[in-house]
């Protein structure tokens, strides 16, 4: 008898703890069903339920502060500028990648022509690879340094004009 009573009290307390979550609509179907059955038979819990629901309604009906129009407009302008800046950076990355590939293509493509003018067309078949590759490396280095200086000067000029490269 007392076991049954203790069990009912325990069940009552555990269901009572679900009342606030019920007001927040945060119970599972099974929990809600069990709670509704209990509330129908327990006036204390029914009163508690009413209180929690009133609190939930109070929270739902809080006035909504409006974002100041100037704040929104200022933010929109800054955000649009940032999006444009990021898009330009991405474009620049692709341009740089293309220029790097193009530069290598030009370097390798013009190397035979340079060798032909300097030492005959088939001289790049020499076994003396050190001289050949050294020549190629020097030629590539000259081109890359020249291109690097030109790119730096262009970037500095654009930076002074107030634009990001």
């Amino acid at each position, binding site marked *: 008898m007392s076991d049954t009573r203790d069990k009912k009290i325990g069940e009552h307390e555990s269901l009572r703890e679900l009342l606030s979550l019920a007001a927040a609509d*945060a119970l599972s179907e099974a929990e809600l069903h069990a709670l509704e059955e209990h509330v129908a038979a327990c006036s204390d819990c029914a009163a508690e339920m009413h209180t929690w629901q009133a609190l939930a309604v*109070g*929270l739902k009906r809080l006035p*909504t502060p409006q*974002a100041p129009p100037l*704040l929104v407009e200022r933010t*929109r302008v*800054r*955000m649009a500028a940032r999006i444009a800046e990021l898009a330009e950076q991405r474009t620049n990355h692709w341009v740089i990648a293309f220029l790097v590939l193009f530069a290598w293509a030009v370097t390798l493509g013009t190397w035979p022509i340079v060798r032909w003018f300097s030492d005959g067309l088939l001289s790049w078949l020499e076994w003396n690879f050190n001289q050949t590759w050294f020549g190629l490396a020097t030629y590539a280095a000259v081109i890359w340094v020249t291109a690097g200086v030109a790119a730096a000067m262009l970037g500095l000029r654009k930076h002074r004009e107030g634009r990001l490269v």
Partner: protein
Amino acid sequence: MIGLNQANTWEGQVALESDVARLRRGDSQALESVMARYQHRLYRYLLRLSREPALAEDLFQQTWMRVAEKIRHYDPNRSFEAWLFSVARNLTIDHLRRYRPESLQEPGAGDEGGERRLAATGPSALDRVLEQERAAQVSGALAEMPVIYREVLSLRFEEEMKLEEIAEVLGTPISTVKTRLRRGLEAMRHQMETRFPSAGAW
């Protein structure tokens, strides 16, 4: 709330997905549409967390700037709303952690007084106060809650987010969301009853 109504319809959801996709491609024209949907709700959420209009405005700008920088990394399979609010939340928590770390402390398990209040029976002064819809008092009580309760109560009752979305915003399991909801409501009730202790018979 126009933004909330727009997002809740099927057409609104499709329009939002389209705007977000355009934004991801760098179309700044979509920006205005996306901001119009969320500007007031986001500001409200930041105000609830920060409790200071000036700070909320600053965080509002930072949130949208972060969205501009990270939108290309946003996973379209996720809820944009949850993602947006998680960005806002993370910025706010970072700020509070830096300047007001004490505000992030979670109350002890027995601090809210909720368990004591659960033993009360019968009609209460709280019922009469809330029946009179004194929103200002509810708002004031909410502002006095610890931030971990304020945010979950705001997301559930004001933003009407599902538990799964709240869990995504907070980066916690759903069980934690439910625990904080329960404790937050108990703390709110305690706060309200403290404010109006003798309005009626106990």
